[in-house]
């Protein structure tokens, strides 16, 4: 009855999980903002995933793996005393107004990849994470809730706050 990871398990583990390597790396890279850390975290996450693969009973392999990648990333962020884990003080976001910058200006700059990337990198980790999961992986709210370990009902409001914050940072950069 005892189960140990063996040679044959590696094969099936790799077959199920390695296709999601790009997604794993992308998430870690956005969370850690550093290539070397991202690679270390992804490697560590795969190892952790392999050890608990017996607990994976089919279903959404990508979400399962990304949850582990996310948790591993946060462990490192906390160790490095990254202060941006959550949005504590800077919470008041005015969805309606960036008085100084018009919507037209934002639209004009919305193709500016460098600007958007910089603004996104400034966001707190939980915002970077949710934007990457939604816009780059195209995940559903349900999958995002599973990975970020928040109630499904929270996903929409967090996404809204993340986007509003991004818009605010973009506006700040444009008015410079």
């Amino acid at each position, binding site marked *: 009855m*005892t189960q140990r990871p063996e040679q044959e398990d590696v094969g099936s583990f790799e077959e199920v999980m390695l296709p999601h390597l790009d997604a794993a790396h992308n998430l870690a890279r956005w969370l850690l903002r550093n290539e070397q850390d991202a690679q270390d975290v992804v490697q560590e996450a795969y190892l952790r995933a392999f050890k608990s693969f017996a607990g994976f009973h089919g279903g959404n392999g990508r979400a399962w793996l990304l949850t582990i990648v996310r948790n591993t990333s946060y462990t490192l962020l906390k160790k490095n005393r990254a202060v941006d884990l959550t949005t504590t003080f800077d919470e008041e976001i005015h969805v309606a107004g960036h008085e100084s910058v018009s919507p037209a200006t934002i639209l004009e700059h*919305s193709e500016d990849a460098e600007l958007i990337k910089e603004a996104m990198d400034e966001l707190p980790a939980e915002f970077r994470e949710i934007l990457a999961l939604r816009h780059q992986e195209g995940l*559903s709210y349900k999958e995002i809730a599973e990975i970020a370990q928040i109630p499904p009902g929270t996903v*929409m409001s967090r996404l809204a706050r993340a*986007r509003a914050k991004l818009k605010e940072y973009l506006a700040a950069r444009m008015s410079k």
Partner: protein
Amino acid sequence: MTCDEAIKLMDGYLDGELDPIANQTIEQHLRECQKCDEAYKTHSALIRSIGKATPYYKAPSGLRERIQASLREEIAERSPRSVSRNIPSLFPSLFQSKPSERRAVPFGTQWSWLALAAAIVLAAIIAFNLAPRLQRPGADQFLATQLIASHVRSLMANHLTDVASSDQHTVKPWLDAKLDFAPVVVDLSSEGFPLVGGRLDYLDNRPVAALVYQRRKHFINLFVWPAESGSAGADKRITRQGYQLLHWVDSDFNYWAVSDVSDNDLQAFKQVFEKQLPRR
């Protein structure tokens, strides 16, 4: 609906995650309120550009090998010691009670019999619920396994396409020449699903065409082969190992789309694909 409520639901609306009733209410509000409609347009433009403008950090070459090496190292370390791991048990009382720990409760033995009975009932319920799902679409499940394997292989082995071209007039003749049927090939770039190329594959005991489309950074393999007459039926959706499979049949062909994009994206893909089909 007030403006505040509309703003609150706007993100869910843009992401296509609201229920139909909320969708309708917000659409009606946007028709009536110019201010919210403008906010909606700016917001949707921003949302589109986040996906388009931000870099997707693909795994660098070498990371895969690094991971594979560390997994093998892990096994090598583990094997000789042969550590037995505890399996979390569904019924701890049943499996973990050691004789020495048996308490002097008069109902002690009855309890474990009860637990055993409960386990049997539970197992029966699970089996009863699972059995129809496992049995009926057995052929489909087997095919689904083949389809996913083929999709994964195509991405793993650098063998995504035999003919790499976004031009449907290059891909189609190439496939026609190799197969005993002529699949329809359409480019869906304008709909957000650019054609990447085509490939020959072997599924369900016959050569099939695999058309490769891209959705953002993800790939969709669309497997096509002739349908048997009268085999039309409802669409089938299967989710497995994080992959979405969507199956449909038209008057000529069987289609199986396989990808790691979301179910919504795959449905949208099917819709635009069918829309682009030449009318017969």
